[in-house]
């Protein structure tokens, strides 16, 4: 993989630090008067999502990370792993359930997700921003029952649980924002 000098640092660049892949969020050139120059960067660990700050000596080189973000189709899961397919090459990639983290509960077969690959191995999976899922279990939501903040829990076909308005019924398909994990609207089928 290529090496990058601090002169090439910019937001979005993927580098290896302490054996983990990171993405640069911010790059600041720091130079005290008449002194040594530094690059102070804010970087996100692509394995665990944590953001840290780190300083590099200006002119220092770092190893680039072979990280690629690509859209793939979710095919199926066998409980322990999730299989995705690249829509153009038809190549299949298998990701451990651990990598999916909270993304798993939104996935329906054939959904398009963004899969981050590191050295051609799935590192993380981002579900689509909006998903349309069927409610498989929810209370009827009797009119007048306003306890619980004006909403009721609903279990979706993927086993995810979301809060929905009282008028939404079992069997209906709803749109959910996976980033906020909130109900958006009903979907006309």
């Amino acid at each position, binding site marked *: 993989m290529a090496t990058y000098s601090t*002169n090439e640092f910019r937001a979005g660049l993927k580098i290896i630090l302490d054996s983990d892949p990171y993405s640069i969020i911010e790059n*600041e*050139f*720091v*130079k*005290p*008067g*008449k*002194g*040594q*120059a*530094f690059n*102070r960067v804010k970087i996100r660990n692509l394995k665990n999502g944590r953001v840290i700050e*780190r*300083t*590099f*000596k*200006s*002119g*220092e080189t770092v190893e680039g990370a072979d990280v690629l973000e690509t859209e793939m189709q979710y095919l199926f899961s066998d409980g322990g792993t999730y299989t995705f397919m690249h829509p153009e090459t038809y190549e299949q990639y298998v990701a451990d359930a651990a990598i999916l983290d909270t993304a798993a509960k939104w996935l329906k077969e054939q959904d398009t997700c963004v899969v981050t690959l590191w050295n051609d191995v799935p590192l993380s999976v981002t579900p689509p921003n909006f998903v349309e899922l069927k409610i498989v279990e929810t209370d009827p939501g009797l009119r007048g029952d306003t306890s619980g903040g004006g909403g009721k829990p609903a279990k979706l076909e993927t086993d995810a649980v979301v809060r929905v308005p009282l008028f939404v019924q079992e069997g209906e398909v709803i749109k959910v924002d996976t980033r906020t994990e909130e109900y958006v609207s009903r979907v006309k089928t």
Partner: protein
Amino acid sequence: MLATVRNFFSDRNVLEVETPALYPSCNPEPMVESFALTNTVAEMNCLYLQTSPEFAMKRLLAAGSGAIYQICRAYRKSESGRYHNPEFSLLEWYRPGFSLRQLMEEVEALLAAVVPPSQIKHHAVYLSYRSIFNQTVGVDPFLATVEDFLAVANRLGYPEAEAICNGNRSAWLDFLFSHVVQAQLPKQCIVFVYDYPACQAALARLRPQQPDIAERVEVFIDGIELGNGFQELTDAEQQKQRFLAQQAERQQAGLPVPEIDECFLGALSAGLPDSAGIAIGLDRLLMKLCGLERIQQVLTFPLGA
């Protein structure tokens, strides 16, 4: 802003001068890279863009110019970022017969004339390097060892500092000052940090009876370095030694080693009057005035984003 600056100096009878931006020699400081240019004329084959007008202006002082100031462009390779553009504007002036303290008071008066009172609410704060370093970092910058600095870095969460500083005291001071001290300087007022450790002297004179102290001052507003001032080194032999040390440092680091500016050394030998001098970054001053966050916002066509 420039009109205010010119009126300020005109009122004080300081002469405006212009010195060349193109020189046959360049600054040997290891931390600054000069742009080198080639010329077609044999005798002036290799020329450099100035990194500051310092050497030229001191030659004028030695020739008896009296108090002088200049507003000009300076050029430094690879310096690009929120507060850096490879080409930038400097206001530099020299006061023969002034102490550094007198110069600081003049800087305070200049900044007060340029920056409206609504932005600078308090009187200037004067802090010694030793006291502010001790207060924010927790160790004495003059007495602490490299091991002490390492302990600080571990305590404050800078695991990368050890490799970067590599046992060099000056590098540690640069690192800790820029990462820890600067951000904690008092805000919304002019801050002068004075009495630097000798290893950070640059072109400043060492205090006659206390040679571990360099008579250097830096001016900050809201943690941003606006200026660098010195009680100028007038001893030609000491200056030559510093140049030789800088050349050696460059050699060791595998950097290009420039020739020493003999005209400048000649001027020092002829006699430079005791002077205090300072350079202020005009673009950064303009940033402060306009409340802007990036130097690119005050430059018409900046290089880089």
